[in-house]
């Protein structure tokens, strides 16, 4: 893992020109970014690696649509925050996305500065969650040190 990166982001969008450029630009700003052109590819990557935030295009033609992908993502990595990106005002799917646990949604075109801000907020939230979980675990371990092994077993799964 590159220690230069503050946090790791996965961008999922079927628009190749957009995907390539955003990956490069976020990378340049110290955000470790990878791109996936479709839902399947994104889920594959998520199974391999850990991402803090996912930027997901809701409407992708062919294959899995954004909402379906989001549902799967939440199964793989429940703590990873997902920001939805949409080219039009499909409020219904945005709302559905929010219900499924998406952090927020953005309407294209988005300025990079705004995007970075949103990503940072999402990351902060995720960090906060992680922090809580970690401190909860520490408390638990302090009370029941024996569970260290149990924890490790769980993580192996």
């Amino acid at each position, binding site marked *: 893992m590159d220690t230069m990166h503050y946090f790791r982001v996965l961008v999922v969008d079927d628009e190749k020109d*957009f995907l390539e*450029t*955003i990956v490069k630009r976020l990378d340049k700003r110290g955000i470790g970014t990878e791109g996936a052109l479709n839902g399947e590819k994104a889920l594959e990557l998520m199974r391999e690696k850990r991402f803090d935030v996912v930027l997901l295009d809701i409407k992708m033609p062919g294959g899995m649509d954004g909402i379906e992908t989001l549902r799967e993502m939440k199964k793989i990595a429940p703590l990873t925050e997902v920001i939805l990106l949409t*080219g039009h005002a499909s*409020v219904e799917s945005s709302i559905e996305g929010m219900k499924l646990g998406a952090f927020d949604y953005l309407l*294209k075109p988005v300025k*990079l500065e705004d995007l970075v801000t949103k990503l940072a907020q999402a990351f902060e939230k995720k960090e906060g969650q992680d922090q809580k979980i970690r401190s909860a675990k520490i408390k638990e371990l302090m009370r029941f040190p024996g569970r260290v092994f149990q924890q490790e077993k769980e993580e192996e799964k």
Partner: protein
Amino acid sequence: MIEGKRQQDMETSRYTGLQRKIILLTLLVSLAPLIVLGATIYYQFAGMYRAKITQQITYRSRGLAQAVELFLKERTAILCSMADTHHFNEMIDEANLSRIFEIMNSRAGAFVDLGVIDGNGRHLAYIGPYDLKGLNYYQQPWFGEVMAKGVYISDVYMGYRRLPHFIIAVRRQEKSHSWILRATIDSGVFEGIVKAAQVGKTGDAFIVNKSGVYQTQPRFEGRILTKSKLETSSFGGGTTGVEKKNSEEKQILFAGTWINHGKWLVVIRQGVTEEMTGLFSTRNMEIAIVLSGILAIILMTVFTTRMTISRLRAADVKAGEMNAQLMQSDKLAALGKMAAGIAHEINNPLQVIVEKTGWMQDLLNEEELQQSKNIDEFRTSINKIEEHVERARKVVHGMLGFARKMEPHMEDVDINAVINQTIDLLGNYARINNITITSELSPDVPIIAADGAQLQQVFMNLVSNAIDAIGKDGRIDIKSRRMGPQIHIEVSDNGPGIPEEKQKRIFDPFFTTKETGKGTGLGLWVTHNIVEKMGGAVNMRSEEGKGTTFTVRIPIVIPEKK
């Protein structure tokens, strides 16, 4: 405008045509039976009346005929009985004859003289004013007739003392020879009977013989024993009614009955006009009733048709307005869908452009490119691209501004508070342009469940449009009030107003009266969509030179109790 007027004229003429058709048809259908009925009654009545009059004078004629006939029979019978009860020898004794004559006169009267004639026509005995004794009647036609038939009654003639007379002669058969008893009758007596039947102003009664010579003095034309103008051949057996017109074109009815074995005709004459006066007054009444009926029908028809047409017209206008409104909202809905589709298709490429130019900007900041001669040109171009992408983004987002908030966020909204907020927000902008905003907000307006942000947007759009329309120096009035199940909010300005040809399009997306680049043409479209989504409506009333008023009607939705 001219075209509109022409269309209006065409429509007016269409309604007038329809009105005329309905009136004509209704009148035809309702007047035709009335007129037919009226005419039928008119003529039927006249016919019946005439028949009645004819019948009446026929009766009179028959009655008179019977009276005259009775008179003749009576005289004939007396004469017969005298002849039958006396022998020839007794009769030729003039003293005896004189006595018989006296008896006859005292019993029946009207006998002028009495004579006895033997079978050879010699006048053997005579009592009376003429010196007829010794005359021989053998050659006279009446002598043959009385000898053959037994009874003879002569026509009237002017006798001694210039009085009308006629003769009755009867034959007595005594063994082998026969003789004749002959009497002259003063016809003045039965003239009295006839005259009694001369009733009314035009009624006449008289007797003519077979060749039409008056046997009695008629009341009007002609004299006794002169020829009448009556065609006796037109009277058949029994009693016959005949209608004639006299010289003055007046209708006259005649009824005649033959008496005296078809020798005399008893005639009753009656002017129709007099008898018909009853009919005429009835007729006039009938005509008056029918005419007033026709007048009433015409008036009623015209009145009801006019009312119907004007109602129809009003309904048509209303339906037309509703249609126009429906078409307007259909059009706006379709445009909305299209706009959302276009927005999506444009946003994706815009996003790529944003990223690509961003990337170019990122790269320009690298060391080796700083020395490039055209670095500033690149920077400027990139900035311009970004600027225009931003412009495009604003348009597209404006289009979606409504759509994005399609799912309204319901909360308790005090519309008056929202209006006041809007005035606060825009007050400064208005003051700069010397525009006064006044408000007259009714305290009756209830708290409703609605999306406050959307309502805010509606009022912002309307008020800022009003400010833009006025430009400088003017006033805006905002009123709110409760109207039944709705809240009405009026935003009026005293700006220049909207030209009529543009009024229809003001709710269309991208339609703007502002200068290019200053307005997106989306404000009113979004306003319209928001209000319609709430179940309300936005209307506009504008008069050039006077100003524009927008009326927003929002249904009152009572918030649920928490």
